[in-house]
């Protein structure tokens, strides 16, 4: 008996978990390109280095400076604001567009193709495009002003509008990606659920709230994590559109990190900021995973 089982096990196809050995390429890649730089950043956050010569160990100096740096506090607040606004604006939009694009209307394919176009453009191109478009002297505001006889607005040169402009440009850029996620998610929902609901007399709106939304739970989590982590590391658009200005009114943490490290050449302190950013982004995604129960990998098809 024992012998036969042993034999059949050896000769039959492999079942269960694959060996640890298969994880090695992935782990190596991750260690070299993620863990190692992160460890270096952690080490450098305790040093002072201007990019020349060797880093000098300064103990907790950078960390003390971090906690008394009002600019850092402001940047965290701005990063938080940007993250929340980004999520609050992008999620409903991409959800609606994604669900719509999952349907089989005749105009859908054409409109979707046009709509997903921003996905193909680089952030730099998008930022330059918008900077030109909203230029108060030569762009759309100047045109609009001459048509309507109003004073043209300086969107990125004013404190109260600069951050919203960033949120808007980010929305324009990233909503297509998230819509694509939702489109995929919505396509996975079995038609039988909707058929059953129609028989029970549920209208489109009730179907949306009671079938589509719950079924998209995992997609919402994925998309939200991408958005939150993306907003926390949002950088290139800020660099091109506002350069953290006017003054420091759009200096979010990633931009502050760049400015400290590569404009002021304070690599040590820049690393300290970078490390805080890593910790924050990791914490944010962990919290999101925990809160939504995404980690439990519970199926949306349970009981079907």
């Amino acid at each position, binding site marked *: 008996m024992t012998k036969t089982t042993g034999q059949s096990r050896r000769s039959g196809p492999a079942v269960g978990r694959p060996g640890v050995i298969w994880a090695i390429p992935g782990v190596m890649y991750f260690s070299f390109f993620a863990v190692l730089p992160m460890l270096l950043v952690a080490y450098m956050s305790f040093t002072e280095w201007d990019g*020349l010569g060797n880093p000098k160990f300064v103990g907790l100096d950078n960390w003390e400076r971090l906690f008394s740096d009002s600019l850092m506090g402001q940047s965290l607040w701005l990063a938080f604001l940007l993250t929340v606004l980004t999520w609050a604006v992008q999620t409903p939009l991409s959800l609606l567009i994604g669900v719509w694009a999952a349907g089989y209307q005749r105009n859908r394919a054409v409109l979707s193709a046009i709509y997903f176009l921003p996905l193909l453009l680089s952030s730099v191109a998008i930022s*330059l495009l918008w900077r030109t478009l909203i230029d*108060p*002297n030569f762009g759309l505001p100047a045109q609009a002003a001459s048509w309507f006889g109003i004073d043209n607005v300086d*969107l990125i*040169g004013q404190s109260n509008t600069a951050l919203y402009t960033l949120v808007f440009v980010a929305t324009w850029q990233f909503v297509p990606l998230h819509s694509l996620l939702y489109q995929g998610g919505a396509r996975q929902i079995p038609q039988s659920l909707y058929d059953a609901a129609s028989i029970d007399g549920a209208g489109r709106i009730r179907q949306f709230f009671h079938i589509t939304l719950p079924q998209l739970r995992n997609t919402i989590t994925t998309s939200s994590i991408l958005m939150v982590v993306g907003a926390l590391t949002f950088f290139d658009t800020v660099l*091109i559109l506002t350069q953290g200005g006017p*003054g420091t009114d759009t200096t979010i943490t990633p931009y502050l*990190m760049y400015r400290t490290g590569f404009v002021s050449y304070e690599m040590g302190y820049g*690393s300290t900021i970078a490390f805080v950013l890593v910790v924050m982004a990791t914490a944010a995604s962990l919290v999101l995973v925990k809160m939504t129960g995404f980690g439990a990998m519970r199926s949306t098809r349970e009981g079907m």
Partner: protein
Amino acid sequence: MEGHARPRRRALLVTATTLALAVAPLTACGSDGTKESGKLSVWVYQDGSTRIQKEAVDRFNKTSDVKVVLNEIPADGYQDKVRTGMGSSNAPDVFFNWGGGSIRDYVNSGKLLDLTPTMDADPSLKSAFLPSILDAGKIDGKYYGVPMRGTQPVILFYNKELFAQNNVEPPKTWEDMLKLVQLFSSKGVTPFALAGANSWTELMWVEYLLDRFGGVEVFDKIANGDSAAWGDDAMLKTAQAIKQLVDKGAFGKKFGSVSYTAGGASTLFAKGKTAMHLMGSWEYATQLTDNPDFAKNKLGWATFPTVPGGKGDASAVVGNPTNYWSINANTKQKDAAIAFVKTAMSEEYIKALVDNGDVPTTTNTADLLSSSPNPEFAKAEFEMVQKASSFTLSWDQNLSASVATPMLTEIQKLFNGQITPEKFVESLKALK
């Protein structure tokens, strides 16, 4: 052409490198093979004038045993590239820089060759250049650079046509300036073009006003590390003067997103939407390229006006005195490097600069300027620099980057009305 020589144009496209903060120490690996004997690696900033350096290298290589390898580095990434290069084993032997703060860190870490003994040994080298220009490149009383390009003072440009229509002259005093602000505002013309998206353009105002109010000494103290000098009375007067100008609408209301690098300020100026523009001398070349008719017929230039009760000399100028060649202290080809940088004073080289529209800073420049493509402007510019009692290097180049960056932010806030003049002075005093 010269417009590109403006440093710290924080590049729009440098994004790729930036998130790799942690990888910075790793990027300096690898070798370019220019280190073997008989080669001299020279790095230069790539722009419209680079071909002159290329010609100089060709001439030098014809006679020299040690061959120069010229590495042209695209403008936007220049300072970053030199920075990483100098921190690695892949450093240039000779490199282009702006003097002052752009090389101070290298001097402090012992990476640059002190050229004072060379200058002492060869008086013809020292006497070949205008003293104010050589001095502007000094660090801690020692020479580290040989001037190798044109000078770029900051000049008050004005629209001759608009001035003639209104029957006015360029301002000589602060009162003149306020009157002009009022006059042009009432005609719907913005008095001064200002590219508020690039804070270094606002810095030019602060530099000139402080120089006129307090004299050259105030900033000299700051540059030598005395941060208390920010609290000088002249600094507060400067800040108040700027607030006054902004409040009177001297720059209009929408300067906040006008960019110089994207051509915004120069276009507004050329189209007659603004009457004056305080800008580096490269503005002339920029206008000549983009709006040739305006540059030839309507563009006028003047010195910065005086202020009431000011201690500063009316002839003093600010800007970029010139660019310099500096030599790596660890070079294996010291003699060849010195021989190469000396070619920057040869008549052939100076002539090539003049023909390119640059205004070199040698003592014999005046005789050569008539061959310049724009002799009238070139002569005026040279005269301004020659007569100047002092030539202060732009602060953002003169101070170390860790001070210059927050300083530029504070200046931008002052112009935007986000902080009061008093708060401005206080923030500057806190900079270390």
